[in-house]
């Protein structure tokens, strides 16, 4: 069972580290065993995973906003139905991930509040605007493509509930990428104006998508322990390289130009990119991206305006429960 109800009383490993238990724990990780919610784990492992899984969940939920922007303006009923289904999937992914994060002992209410107050982060990519329909194609093709690269190794992550959630997510994510690429193919085979729109979207999204893999390996603050704990199986730069190598031929197929004139293929066949503007990444993370305030304001509004529904549902459940108790007593 992976429930917060069963975990809440387990407070003995939160502050005090126990050397013997820590080495037993590492031995289990080294033997590729899965760690389950009620198992002993170092406080730092719990904290790292709570941070990572909840940020991942927030990203899925905030990620509904840029795409939701185009549901009512999709160019056909087919596109509209697909986009609606995709945005529903993102919501579902957020919920699987919140459930996985909760097994570590923090309630969903606390996790959501940390996001709404701006304390918890979400993926920086969702702070960019979706200006045209081609952005929806580009997000599916590249943003979901990059997410898949990141998420497939997480299916083997040492923490059982996270790994299981990622297996479900990855199965569904493949539809997202294919629907995005289909939009791009259609635009690129369309009029010159449609193709220009596709190129313009690629120009704006390419660099932010490369930043999704996180800071370069020398600068990443979480990588070492995450690798030791088998939360992370590949480095940021390795995944970024894999993504670029997979994407270059796809862009070629579309007849689009990747907005990096300095990019060249090395002797190993890998595509080397020009330097990434990490100042832009830091600025967006710090809250100064084009849409940070919009995104948080939209989440807060939805949360506040939904409060009466949550309260009414709880009040109704309570009323029914007390009626049943009264009837039973008669």
């Amino acid at each position: 069972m992976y429930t917060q109800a069963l975990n809440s009383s387990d407070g003995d490993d939160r502050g005090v580290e126990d050397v013997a238990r820590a080495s037993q724990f590492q031995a289990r990780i080294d033997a590729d065993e899965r760690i389950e919610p009620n198992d002993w784990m170092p406080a730092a492992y719990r904290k790292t995973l709570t941070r990572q899984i909840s940020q991942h969940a927030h990203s899925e939920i905030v990620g509904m906003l840029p795409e939701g922007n185009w549901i009512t303006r999709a160019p056909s009923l087919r596109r509209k139905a697909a986009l609606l289904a995709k945005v529903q999937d993102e919501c579902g992914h957020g919920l699987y991930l919140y459930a996985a994060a909760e097994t570590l002992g923090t309630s969903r209410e606390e996790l959501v509040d940390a996001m709404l107050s701006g304390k918890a982060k979400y993926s920086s990519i969702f702070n960019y605007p979706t200006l045209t329909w081609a952005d929806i194609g580009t997000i599916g093709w590249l943003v979901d493509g990059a997410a898949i690269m990141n998420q497939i190794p997480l299916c083997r992550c040492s923490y059982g509930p996270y790994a299981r959630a990622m297996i479900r997510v990855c199965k569904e994510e493949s539809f997202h990428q294919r629907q995005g690429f289909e939009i791009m193919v259609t635009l690129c085979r369309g009029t010159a104006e449609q193709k220009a729109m596709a190129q313009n979207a690629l120009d704006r999204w390419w660099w932010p998508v490369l930043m999704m893999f996180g800071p370069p390996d020398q600068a990443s603050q979480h990588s070492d322990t995450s690798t030791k704990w088998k939360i992370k199986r590949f480095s940021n730069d390795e995944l970024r390289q894999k993504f670029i190598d997979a994407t270059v031929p796809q862009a070629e197929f579309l007849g689009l130009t990747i907005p990096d004139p300095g990019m060249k293929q090395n002797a190993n066949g890998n595509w080397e990119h020009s330097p990434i503007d990490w100042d832009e990444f830091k600025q967006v993370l710090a809250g100064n991206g084009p849409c940070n305030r919009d995104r948080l304001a939209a989440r807060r509004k939805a949360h506040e305006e939904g409060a009466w529904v949550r309260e009414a549902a709880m009040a109704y459940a309570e009323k029914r429960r007390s009626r049943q108790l009264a009837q039973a007593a008669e």
Partner: protein
Amino acid sequence: MATPNVPLWEVFIRSRNGLAHKHVGSLHAADSTLALQAARDIYTRRGEGLSIWVVPSNAITASDPSEKGMMFEPAESKIYRHPTFYDVPDEVGHM
């Protein structure tokens, strides 16, 4: 912003006739009706199920993983419960 903790439910889905319900995850809902509807929306968007059970998480009694050694020891030591423990002469053929 303080929302009361909404109860937690464990979700079990039977994927095809003949297979048992299997645990697929958990969700929050105010009551069992809402829990069933949420389970349908979260866990069966692609026809994964023919039947859903939702069970309040706090109604589940679980074994203690830290005592799994003692708990499952009786099964570990009884190899004579497996068919391969017994020798059957080759000439008898498949049994």
